[in-house]
């Protein structure tokens, strides 16, 4: 089979864009934490580029995309067995496909790190993401995209379910073990550097064009559609979050705008190739509103989803998945507004199964870790900060 050169370019550059989201995420999270935890927080993202990339090549890709059963792929492509430089997937070299999908496997567990900043042992974090990649990411990826039981049923253009719901729900689940940071609700846990966070948001948006529009896997009209919806939804969502803050708290913060943009990006992810650019506006607006409320509720329930990994990725991912079932209207995808109410049901099913599965697995992994190498650092380590205690370094020296 011959490859299409333009499609190949598109997937390769999109892969690079998605990889850039990882430093983007590191900055986004890193800016929001205290000085004493910034390297720890950034490492949670960076190290995923090491661990998850290797895991993906060695076994993850095979579990997600090689032939298997309804639940998980087989080991046929472990160590990229059976794939060589001439292998083709669709219209692109298989290596390009493996790389593109690998970027998703890298960033997904890193998203969870937003919930747990400042209180997890580094070695436990490593074990966690490695196990989570095998137990949660690879199977769910197989369900939705790799031939599993949701493939061709649930609409998930670029990973709303596979990426954001899995990571967002797992963020909430792992908090049952971790509890709050010391000093939660106290002044000193404000973001140490919001300019880093804004830069991170900028890189995330930039990279997200690869994430969403690259998911068409071809340089075609659908790619262009996914691209423009990825511009519109976050614009609307950022604007709405800012307006809500303005109205409720008296000030439109830069951080609020950036958070809204992120919520909009999450929301449009499953929908990006299925809805019109105009439909991307209500998707952005509604999700921004819902996530805003979810983050507000956090304050009331008092759990410490430190950087709102659940509030934005979990809630935003679920909202986006459902809204996809409502607004889908492009190509063969049709949603509620076009009278296809069954799609919304399927979306709901997909969300529910994934959420429950991810939560249970995360609780299991957390349980095993607590019983073995432990999960949480000591009180004194938390006070001193993870940069010094886990990594033996500090971010800033005079």
């Amino acid at each position: 089979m011959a490859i299409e050169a333009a499609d190949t370019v598109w997937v390769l550059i999109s892969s690079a864009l998605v990889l850039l989201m990882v430093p983007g995420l590191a900055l986004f999270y890193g800016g929001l934490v205290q000085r004493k935890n910034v390297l720890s927080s950034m490492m949670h993202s960076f190290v995923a580029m090491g661990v998850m990339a290797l895991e993906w090549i060695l076994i993850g890709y095979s579990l997600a995309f090689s032939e298997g059963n309804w639940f998980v792929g087989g080991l046929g492509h472990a160590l990229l067995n059976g794939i060589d430089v001439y292998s083709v997937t669709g219209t692109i070299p298989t290596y390009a496909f493996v790389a593109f999908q690998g970027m998703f496997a890298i960033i997904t567990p890193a998203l969870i790190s937003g919930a747990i900043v400042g209180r997890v042992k580094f070695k436990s974090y490593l074990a966690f993401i490695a196990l989570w990649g095998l137990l949660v990411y690879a199977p769910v990826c197989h369900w939705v995209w790799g031939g599993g039981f949701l493939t061709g049923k649930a609409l998930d253009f670029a990973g709303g379910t596979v990426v954001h719901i899995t990571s967002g729900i797992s963020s909430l689940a792992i908090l049952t073990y971790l509890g709050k940071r010391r000093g939660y609700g106290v002044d000193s846990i404000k973001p140490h550097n919001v300019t880093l966070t804004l830069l991170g948001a900028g890189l995330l948006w930039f990279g997200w064009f690869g994430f969403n529009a690259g998911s068409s896997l071809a340089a075609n009209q659908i790619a262009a559609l996914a691209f423009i919806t990825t511009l519109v939804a976050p614009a609307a969502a950022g604007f709405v979050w800012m307006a809500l803050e303005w109205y409720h708290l008296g000030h439109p913060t830069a951080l609020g705008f950036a958070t809204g943009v992120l919520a909009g990006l999450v929301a449009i992810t499953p929908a990006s190739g299925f809805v019109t650019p105009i439909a991307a506006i209500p998707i952005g607006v509604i999700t921004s509103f819902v996530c805003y409320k979810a983050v507000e509720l956090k304050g009331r329930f008092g759990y410490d989803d430190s950087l709102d990994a659940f509030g934005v990725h979990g809630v935003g991912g679920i909202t986006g998945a459902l809204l996809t079932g409502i607004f889908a209207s492009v190509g063969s995808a049709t949603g509620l507004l076009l009278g296809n109410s069954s799609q919304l049901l399927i979306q709901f099913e997909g969300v529910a199964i994934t959420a429950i599965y991810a939560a249970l697995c995360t609780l299991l992994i957390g349980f095993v870790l607590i019983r073995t190498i432990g999960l949480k650092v000591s009180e004194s380590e938390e006070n001193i900060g993870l940069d010094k205690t886990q990594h033996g370094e500090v971010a800033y020296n005079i």
Partner: protein
Amino acid sequence: MKYIIAIIRPERLDAVKRELQKLEVNRLTVSSVAGYGAQKGHLELYRAIEHEANLLEKIKIEIAVEDHFLQPIIEAIKTGAKGNDGYIGSGKVFVLPLEDVIRIRTNEAGPDAL
């Protein structure tokens, strides 16, 4: 001699410097500190967590002076730091005794070195 330590609002630094310059006082040391005081931080909502933003950015000014200069300098600091809108958190001036001062470059000591 006295060692004056003044804690003021950051946005008043330029005004304080202007007042001091009128007295031809232009040797001083400035640093950035965080203050807790009568000025309670407003309740802030940061990502849905309510907390009192009580750690407030302040500027610390240190000036070593001869005794007879003390009063005018305190007045100058007060004028500059208060502005027209003297309100909570305007700050304080602390006066400590200073026993000696040495100018490193010239080996001068005592009041001459100020």
